[in-house]
């Protein structure tokens, strides 16, 4: 086998010219992985007039930015973006490529993995580098791609031992955002865009994009409801409590699937990861996928009728009781205290 690369690449996702938070989170993690591999951290950025963003990328210790700019690349489109990234990855064979598990990343990464015949693991909750012995063979410094699987009954560690390129997607908020105190003096490598007919197969007829007004990640207090809340109407009391405490309302996947609350408010492995000062879990049993998204909260209150619910294993304060009964009381008592 030829010499294996030690480069770590992060795909920089931009929407309307603004870099997504998840890309900075991936750069923060990518830097640590690159340090372990003693290799460079590189960012691959595609868009139009993106140069002003390079400074913020160097703030994360990025050694090199591969920049492809063109008016036709202003918005993400599957065909040109996947072709550009695929060709670059195939040609330069980085050791690791990280994507955000966003609408864009989840559209793009599988095509790149397919083209380059690389391994790809979705929605990792942790990434580590370790020497691995797999089927009696030693593999130095493999990327451990760690994620809950199968209804949260297990935590699986996935490896891609026999292919040179290891890829993973990670949800927003899972990795912590750690810029350096001082930006590094990195290099910008501009690569030309040569249009191919396949790039323009799909036309964008209309686009509607709004920055989400819901920002769970920066909410100091989160009141979250699960399937145990029983109905969409019952979530009203959670909104009332959140409003009272100056927080946001979130839900577990079961609550989202049941239609109690919109997906953009989902906390957990396939939703957002949050680290608030206080997390109040109401009628949430606490499957691992949910805990993956909230267990780093400073303080956790769990309210559940089932004293055996796993949520009680991660909480600081527990109340065995019906949230529908406890929440109105909580609101009452709190209002009384404010007076």
């Amino acid at each position, binding site marked *: 086998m030829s010499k294996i690369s030690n480069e770590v690449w992060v795909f920089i996702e931009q929407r309307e010219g603004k870099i997504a938070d998840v890309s900075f989170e991936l750069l923060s993690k990518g830097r640590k992985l690159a340090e372990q591999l003693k290799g460079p951290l590189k960012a691959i950025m595609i868009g139009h007039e993106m140069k002003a963003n390079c400074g913020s990328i160097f703030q994360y210790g990025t050694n090199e930015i591969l920049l492809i700019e063109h008016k036709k690349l202003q918005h993400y489109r599957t065909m040109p973006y996947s072709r550009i990234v695929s060709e670059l990855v195939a040609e330069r064979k980085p050791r690791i490529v990280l994507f955000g598990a966003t*609408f864009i990343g989840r559209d793009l990464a*599988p095509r790149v993995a397919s083209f380059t015949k690389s391994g790809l693991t979705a929605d990792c909750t942790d990434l580590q580098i370790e020497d691995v012995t797999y089927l009696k063979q030693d593999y130095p410094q493999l990327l451990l791609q760690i994620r809950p699987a199968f209804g949260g009954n297990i935590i699986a560690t996935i490896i891609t031992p026999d292919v040179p390129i290891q890829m993973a997607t990670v949800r927003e908020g899972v990795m912590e955002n750690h810029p350096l105190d001082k930006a590094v003096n990195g290099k910008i490598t501009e690569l030309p865009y040569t249009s191919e007919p396949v790039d323009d*197969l799909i036309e964008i007829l209309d686009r509607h994009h709004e920055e989400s007004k819901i920002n769970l990640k920066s909410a100091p207090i989160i009141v979250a409801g699960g399937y145990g809340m029983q109905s969409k109407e019952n979530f009203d009391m959670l909104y009332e409590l959140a409003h009272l405490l100056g927080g946001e309302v979130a839900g577990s996947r079961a609550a989202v699937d049941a239609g109690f609350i919109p997906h953009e408010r989902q906390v957990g492995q396939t939703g957002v990861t949050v680290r608030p000062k206080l997390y109040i879990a109401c009628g949430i049993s606490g499957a691992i996928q949910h805990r993956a998204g909230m267990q780093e909260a400073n303080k956790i209150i769990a309210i559940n009728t089932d004293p055996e619910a796993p949520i009680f294993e*991660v909480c600081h304060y527990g109340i065995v009781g019906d949230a529908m009964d406890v929440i109105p*009381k909580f609101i009452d008592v709190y209002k009384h205290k404010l007076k």
Partner: protein
Amino acid sequence: MGYRSIVLVKQVPDTANISGQVMRPDGTVNRAKLPAVFNPEDKVALELALQTKDQYGGTVTAVTMGPPKASDLLRECLYMGADEVLLISDRKFAGADTLATSYVLAEAINKLGKYDIIFAGRQAIDGDTAQVGPQTAEKLGVPQITYAEKIVEIKKNKITVRRRIDGGFEELRSPLPVLITVIKDAAFPRTFRAKRVMAYKNARTLMELEKMTEANSLLYIDDLLQEYKSKNLYMPTFTVDDLDVDLTRIGLRGSPTKVHKVESVVLAGSEHEQFEPTKEGLNELIEKLMQDHIFG
């Protein structure tokens, strides 16, 4: 006229009901031990394909790769209205990750001949990877539209689709053929048609017919095949021999991702303070939070 649609469907374990015996020591899943269901978003994909047929004419072929048991799923597709089904099943395909799966699916689709639209669910509830659709599109060399929530129109061999993006939506127009992955809200799957249930409840795959010959030495597979085909009750089945595949690219061997370690989730049993669900209990808790400067 009309359009030929292919729908990629998958039988998935009901991940809400998993017992301890389903994981094999090598970390793969013993699906035989699990209750199996129609992956919800694949069912939506099938519905969207059937609606496309209702509106524009054409045919719908449901394709699945899985164990012999996945024949149940294909019968359900027939009950809903699929014109044809295809089972891709072989021990050699077992243990495939998304890359190896998409390789086999693409090879099988190519063998089925010309198509206009491939529909698939956005993701399956057992892995939530959302990778097989795009990877199949890449292997077939066709464009893709993921997260589709609405087929706006099909005109002059071009399809207009509305899809979700972060914080909004976009409307895209693609030439055919194209692969489209659909989200749950895109359609509401129709129920089984009683007439079709009657017509197809005895439809059988190759493996099911083989099982019948094993149980009864008077039956011969060739005769059975002929009989079921003539009654239009044979559900076409591809094994590895029916496909021109590179054996190093299928199954566990052809899967770059391997399960290195599987840990059962053991809860630490953390210490926590218990409060009563009464006004007094909550008062205590709120005072504590105020002392901690969490709020107040």
